């Protein structure tokens, strides 16, 4: 974990509510794909956790959806502005579990952390299949980015306006060795029930500190209580205990 000042270098709108922000700063504490950062914004008390989408040297890319006050404020920041950022938070995805044919499943704003993961897996020469699930075609982002990494990409939309009509679980390939997923909890649950392999599931919860001090984001697992911000956000399929 590191607390340092990042400078915004680019901000662009990807869809009606999804933005991509690039920042430069000390990224040395970020060790794995699937980790997150915690941003301090003027006038807001708690920091806002955002998953790491890409990392190139000291350049950090965050892709986030405007859902409330914090993300709305984030979307209005301009290149050149600075932000205090806590980096290197959470356990992240373990690429050693992937096997030869990993399957990455992202739903909506759960897609971004899978990009850096896909990049790492492709660098390890894995045959990567990615399923990107959205409600409708206009919500789609990062399709070309995943294709450019050499991934096989399948898109699903609930309304059928693009790709396979239905949910991410309607587009599962026949063969895969491990599933990495991030998205809304109902999607995670559906993936959990549908897959034949092991899986790494990334969860989201309201957090206080983001680094394990406040116990705000605890959850029960088969292997004991875990803090989503510290022992998570990635939990293994066999340790997940669904709350209801």
């Amino acid at each position: 974990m590191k607390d340092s000042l990042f400078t915004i270098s680019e901000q662009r709108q990807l869809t009606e509510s999804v933005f991509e922000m690039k920042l430069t700063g000390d990224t040395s504490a970020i060790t794995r794909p699937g980790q997150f950062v915690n941003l301090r914004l003027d006038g807001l008390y708690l920091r806002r956790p955002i998953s790491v989408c890409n990392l190139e040297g000291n350049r950090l890319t965050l892709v986030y959806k405007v859902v409330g006050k914090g993300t709305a404020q984030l979307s209005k920041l301009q290149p050149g502005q600075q932000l205090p950022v806590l980096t290197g938070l959470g356990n992240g995805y373990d690429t050693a579990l992937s096997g030869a044919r990993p399957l990455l499943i992202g739903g909506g704003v759960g897609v971004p952390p899978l990009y850096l993961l896909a990049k790492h897996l492709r660098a390890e020469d894995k045959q990567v299949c990615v399923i990107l699930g959205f409600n409708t075609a206009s919500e789609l982002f990062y399709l070309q980015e995943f294709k450019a990494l050499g991934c096989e990409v399948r898109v699903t939309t609930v309304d059928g306006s693009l790709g396979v009509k239905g949910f991410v679980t309607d587009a599962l390939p026949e063969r895969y060795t491990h599933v990495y997923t991030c998205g809304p909890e109902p999607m995670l649950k559906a993936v959990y029930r549908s897959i034949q392999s092991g899986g790494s599931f990334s969860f989201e919860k309201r957090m206080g500190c983001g680094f394990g001090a406040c116990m705000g984001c605890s959850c029960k697992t088969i292997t004991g209580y875990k803090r989503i911000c510290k022992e998570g956000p990635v939990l293994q399929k066999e340790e997940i205990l669904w709350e209801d």
Partner: protein
Amino acid sequence: MGRLSVELCGIELDNPVIPASGTFGYGYEFAELYDIDLLGTFSFKGTTREPRFGNPTPRIADCTAGMLNSVGLQNPGVERVIDTELPKLARCFHKPVMANVSGFSVEDYAYTCEKLDREPQVGWLEVNISCPNVHGGGMSFGTEPAQAASVVRAVKAVTTKPVIIKLTPNVTDIVSVAKACADAGADGISLINTLLGMRIDLKTRKPILANTMGGFSGPAVFPVALRMVYQVAHAVTIPVVGMGGVSSAEDVLEMLMAGASAVEVGAANLVDPYACYTIIHELPAAMDRYGIHELKEIYGGKQHG
């Protein structure tokens, strides 16, 4: 002794800055960032007799100049705190530590305090009496002077370490509770715990916290906390530890002038993990600005005579 040093219940502190319970874990998350031996001490995560998961999530809500939490005393229970957490704590912190204790019956408090009394690194027992009394109709021990006194007596009977009673601000008359604790033999009073609050999510039209209500803390509560510290410090002769929204070196000075002997820093640690580090480093310059040579000139509200 340095110009920042103060004394709390007979134990000298290098400075009055104490991370508050529940915002600092057992210290090691922060020890990754800075040498936590620079702290006066810290109050570790509230410990109960049995392990507790706490309340359902969401347990956190953001507010203007503060936050709500309804963590609900998640902790591994006193046995595991002693077996697992304290040895880990001892590796990154080498001063007397404040053990924060909660309970749901008088017996719980006594049991947990007796166990922690045997731990050499524990310097003080900070007894949080904001919990509901399960045997007494569910009312918090801290809202009724006689109940508060019964906890103090039970704890004092099982320990020789200084006992600091942590008070809830959610009462009509905090002075009467503080006086009852002092009369029952408490060695110190700390206050304030969080103020009961709530938020509603406009989209779902439901409370944000799964527990509906939670404790409000952060800079917004500072004036309320300061007022209560002032009232209590002027009503009892035992030392008072002030807390509630403290976020800067100036806030620390203000708390000391209100009558505190030491100051706890809570929510600030969660938004800025370096909060206590920064406050301690900025204290000398802040003291210079206000003509304070040593904190012993002002702490405990000494300027009031």
